[in-house]
């Protein structure tokens, strides 16, 4: 604090000292400082000098210029990244900035062009340059297989781009999903059977046949059939598909925060169930499964009298 007072009295106009002061202020406020803050700190400094100092710092690449709702912000740039960019010109720095801002979702080349206002050829050259310097990488998106998004080299691509645990190299792993499906179902079924055989009162029977999603997740992890780490959400999507198969039902109960596996004060419980109806009468006849059912007419090419499906079925 005293240092500041001293500086005030000596009325320094040395530009390097101004720059250093600004840098110190940036360090003090890592989120960024506005012009107002600099003005408060160095009230005697003329706006012109201030602007010169800030511009110098910006061109040296030591300061980041950002805009927020109240005006412009200046932020200290990471020294490491400042070092990286040495030897690159401003355009490259701009493109790099744009890609960095896209985070781990990546950005498409056309969007880079829009944001930087550079012509296509320039952008492509710069992208090739940056890739060779190993600063950025291209990741193929799973949604549109021809599209390539660019992101920083060391970032992990987001789930929406790679598809998450179910995709390996842009291919949906259906066998993997099937296997997990079967395993979860077997686990829940055996639990339900154990509960039924225990012959206790029905309420206890039903409660013990339930399994929380956390239990299923632990079971699957312990089985070790998955090379990829699966989260509880992944397991819940698998269990949802079992519900859509009609083999499992789910209830949600309120759980205390902090009990293992609870999310937002609730827990999902899953239980294997029996089907409520045997296959219905219509499908026990060949007509119920006939692919040419609509073309069948008495007296036509396809008719009940000469139906080959019926003949096979009758001789069965």
């Amino acid at each position, binding site marked *: 604090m005293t240092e500041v007072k001293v500086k005030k009295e000596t009325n320094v106009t040395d530009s390097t000292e101004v720059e250093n002061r600004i840098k110190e202020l940036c360090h003090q406020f890592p989120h960024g400082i506005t012009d107002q803050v600099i003005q408060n700190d160095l009230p005697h400094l003329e706006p012109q000098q201030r602007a010169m100092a800030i511009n110098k710092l910006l061109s040296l690449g030591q300061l980041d210029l950002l805009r927020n709702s109240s005006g412009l912000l200046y932020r200290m740039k990471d020294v490491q990244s400042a070092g990286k960019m040495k030897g690159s010109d401003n355009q490259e720095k701009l493109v790099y900035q744009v890609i960095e801002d896209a985070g781990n979702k990546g950005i498409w080349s056309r969007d880079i062009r829009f944001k930087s206002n550079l012509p296509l050829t320039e952008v492509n050259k710069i992208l090739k340059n940056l890739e060779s310097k190993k600063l950025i990488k291209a990741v193929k998106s799973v949604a549109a297989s021809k599209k390539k998004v660019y992101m920083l080299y060391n970032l992990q691509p987001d789930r929406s781009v790679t598809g998450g645990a*179910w995709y390996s190299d842009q291919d*949906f792993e*259906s066998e993997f*999903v099937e296997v997990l*499906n079967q395993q979860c179902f077997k686990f829940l079924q055996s639990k339900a059977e154990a509960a*039924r055989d225990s012959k206790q*009162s*029905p*309420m206890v029977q*039903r409660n013990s046949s339930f399994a929380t999603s956390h239990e299923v997740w632990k079971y699957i992890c312990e089985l070790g059939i998955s090379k990829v780490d699966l989260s509880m959400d992944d397991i819940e*999507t*698998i269990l*949802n*598909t079992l*519900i*859509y*198969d*009609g083999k499992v*039902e789910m*209830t949600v109960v309120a759980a205390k925060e902090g009990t293992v596996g609870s999310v937002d004060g609730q827990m999902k419980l899953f239980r294997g*169930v*029996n*089907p*409520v*109806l*045997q*296959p*219905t*009468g*219509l*499908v*026990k*006849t060949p*007509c*119920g*499964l006939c692919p040419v*059912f609509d073309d*069948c007419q*008495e007296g036509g090419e396809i*008719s*009940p*009298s000469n*139906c080959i499906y*019926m003949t096979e*079925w*009758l*001789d069965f």
Partner: protein
Amino acid sequence: MTLQEVRLCGLLLREHFGEVVEKVGKHLLRSGALNLRTIINETGLPLDLVKKCLCVLVQHGACVFSSGRKGPGSPTEYLTSCNRILRILRYPRYIYTAKTLYGDTGELIIEELLQRGHMTMSSTVKTVADRLTQNMEEGRSMEYSEVSSAFSNLVETHFLQRCPPQPGAGGKDKTTAAPTDNPATPAAPAKTTLQTAESFPDCYKVPHMTLSGRGKRQLSTEEGEDQRNAKKPRLDTATHGDEGIYWQVNYERFHLHFRDQAIISAVANKLDQTSSEIVRTMLRMSEVTTSPTAHCTKPLSSNEIFRSLPSSYNIARPILDQYLTLLVDDPMEFVGKAGESGGGMYVVNLHRALANLARATLESVVQERFGSRSARIFRLLLRKRHLEQKQVEDFAMIPAKEAKDMLYTLLSENLVQLQEIPKTPDYAPSRTFYLYTVNQLPTARMLLQNCHKTVANLIERRLFETKESKRLLEKSQRIEAILASLQASGAEPEQLQEVEEMITAPEKQQLDSLKLHINKLDSAENQVDETIFLLESYITGTASST
């Protein structure tokens, strides 16, 4: 009155009553209410044939007549409806139910009434007694009173009802209704009718009948005598005190019974035996208090349920409460809780149970026809109502290409519908949301029509097979007749053997396989009829409440 329904009704009429009745019936079904002269002109049949056909149809309740539209002076019009004729398909199920509930006597009573349409009580009792006596050993015969008591049991539980009096038939019916002060007769107290169609208040009142005796055995040597006796009983009927009171089978009551059975077996499949017993008790208690079109049964307190449980299931009171709570919590919502008095008031949700059963039927059809992955997509759409294609792929965890293929197949079969939601007023395809959805009620109707077509196909195939082997069947019939006559006249074994050998081995094989085929087709018809029943009950239940 779809095309398939009319075709099926035509086939059923042909099988049971012949081709002429089929022609008249089909014409009436297609054209609505017609008067006699129009029918004669349009079908081209002679007057007396048409009259006989109409009599047959009216006798079986398939046709009703009323005075013409233009006023009381215009000729009467005749109207048939599909529903009644489609019941013919269900006759075996009715007879079987009567057999399980009331034994052989009940079975034969129902069979007779189904065959004849309308009959008086005395004639039914006599015929049934004779038939039962026929099957008993020598020297034993069936008491009329036993049959009468079975008959009154059926009336008490509303399986049989009186035919409504025809307009203009006179007040004779009401005056012959006997007083109920005779303690010897098994007269049931007058029950308030549950049928709105039957506005006749004595619908279920058993008349006083002076009929006593035993069943007569019909022997072949007494043929001549029987010819004379055949006329006599018809004259005797007049003296039994119940002429003019005709009885018919109450189909709605049977349907309620089938519906209860379906719900009970669904509960047994989903939960366990004890729960299904509890639901059975609840349904039994509400048999007479619930109207057929009710949404759910009247509330029953758990005290009442506890008291009415069959004694073989001695479960403790708290356990019963637990079972009831479990039934209420089940996602299928068979049982609901309606209040807390009396230890908890519980109702059986009839419509919802039927909707769930219909939904399970739809799902099983999709599963059997298209595979379990398509069934997964179908169930997903049923649950989540409207989904985009991408969402379907994500939720069902099916690769995009296959999911697309399956969705399009289901769409082409009209099991799944597409809903467009435009972003711009010009419905441009790139700027519209396309959502897949399943509507349960229209899909159920479509499947019902498919069921009708299936049954019609099965019947036609059966007729075809019979026609193909007609020559063979005739031959075997002739041989049987020859054998019977030879046996009766006391022939030697060699002669019998000779006759038997007239049927060659491959022919016998053919006959056996023919019998097998026909049995299979018959049982398939019954199975499809079960599906028809479920879908019909669901559709009538939902369509009336919406």
